[in-house]
């Protein structure tokens, strides 16, 4: 059962990836990020799914140039999950990724408050 669900999730992530490439070609990076963040595999333990989704989120995130503009069209429901991915990004240690994550982190903390950071740190069950 679990196997089927995981395969279904991986397929969905691949599907998401194609959608995101299209959106990026149309210069819609914020839409791309929203698509990437939607239905993230937080409630599974499978690392393959999580890594696959991270790659997709990373792709969309790195394409963002205007961080302030992004927040004017990103709904608050995405804040908590975005914060979790920012910390995953910071954990990679990769310079360009970390620079982008820090840029977004600053604005996200302003928008969502310290509670958002707490929620990403305290939740050891629904991880990205």
């Amino acid at each position: 059962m679990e196997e089927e669900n995981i395969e279904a999730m991986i397929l969905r992530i691949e599907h998401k990836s194609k959608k995101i490439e299209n959106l990026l070609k149309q210069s819609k990076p914020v839409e791309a990020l929203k698509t990437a963040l939607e239905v993230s595999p937080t409630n599974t333990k499978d690392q393959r799914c999580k890594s696959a989704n991270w790659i997709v989120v990373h792709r969309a995130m790195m394409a963002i140039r205007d961080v302030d503009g992004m927040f004017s069209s990103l709904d608050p429901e995405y804040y908590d999950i975005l914060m979790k991915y920012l910390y995953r990004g910071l954990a990679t240690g990769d310079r360009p990724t970390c620079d982008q994550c820090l840029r977004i982190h600053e604005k996200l903390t302003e928008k969502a408050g310290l509670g958002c950071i707490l929620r990403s740190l305290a939740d050891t069950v629904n991880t990205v």
Partner: protein
Amino acid sequence: MPAVEVHQLAQCITCHAWSPDRTMVALCPNNAEVHIYKFTMDKWERVHVLFKHDQIISGIDWSLRSNKIVTASHDRNSYVWNHEGSEWVPTLVILRLNRAALCVQWSPKENKFAVGSGAKTVCICYYEPENNWWVSKLIRKRHDSSVTSVAWHPDNIFLATTSTDGKCRVFSTFIKGVDTKDSGTSSSRDLKFGEQIVQLDLSSSWSFGVKWSPSGNTLAYAGHNSTVYFVEDVRNSPSAHNVAYRNLPLRDLLFVSERMVIGVGFDCNPMVFTKDDTGLWSFAKFLEERKTAQSNSKYGSQFSEAFGKLYGQSRHGANDGVDSLRARGIAHENTITCIIPLQKEGDKIVRRFSSSGLDGKVVIWELDYNTDIPE
């Protein structure tokens, strides 16, 4: 300005409780003693020091009608203090714990008290008149980690607990000979001592500060993930509502009325949550207004410097540091760990309450009559 009185009574306070007539406050100044202060003339005078515990006292409760103080400490013991003459006489309660006691509360009828512990157990203690001592009955099952707070339902039987395993549970503490069966309320199976009525697994992080609403219909507790959980109709069909907020986590809650909750915690400023007509809970406002301009201290000045380093930009040095903390203009300077009601018996709404925290202050708050408190 809701903070009516601010009293610096120690360097750091772990917990506090008020006497029935509200003239005296018992507090633990972060050591093994209980200090009782009385407000005489216009200053606070330390009238008693209760010295029996070996380690920090983590919980104090002062019963309204029977005027007894119960204390619980990290030394795994609990004492019930009786006022005889001018002295407070302790009676040891053998809790049978092998870890610290973390919280304690008298039941509404004051014939029992509950102690939460780091031993993953809850002790329900009742008085046995034949032997003139307090007996402890343990609820050993169910908890996977330390019990951080306990709260009695108005019916004197159900007890809610929160734990560092993230869950909130409700148990029956029915004791034959102490409690009387209320005809028609519940089946006898439910009433068995230690029976778990419901387990709420809503938070994926430590939970604190569970409280029942005055009628016992709503349960609220705070999660360490900056979320407050409100659960309606716990017994029959529990429906939960989470409120995730912007700020640092809360440590304790207080039901001011059926539809208003005040939370205190790491933000040093009490937070007000209200339930609207559709039954939806939400964060309304901070109890106190911060006086300084928010431009330089967006997250609170103690973080500005840290964030400055994180983002690699320079921040204006003028407003940083300890000075701006005081300049924030709010009563507490450090984490508030405890909030208790100060209403007179029979009052339906709590307009007056007090808070204590790691800054050693006891602050008395009063919601003036202009403030609309939704009932």
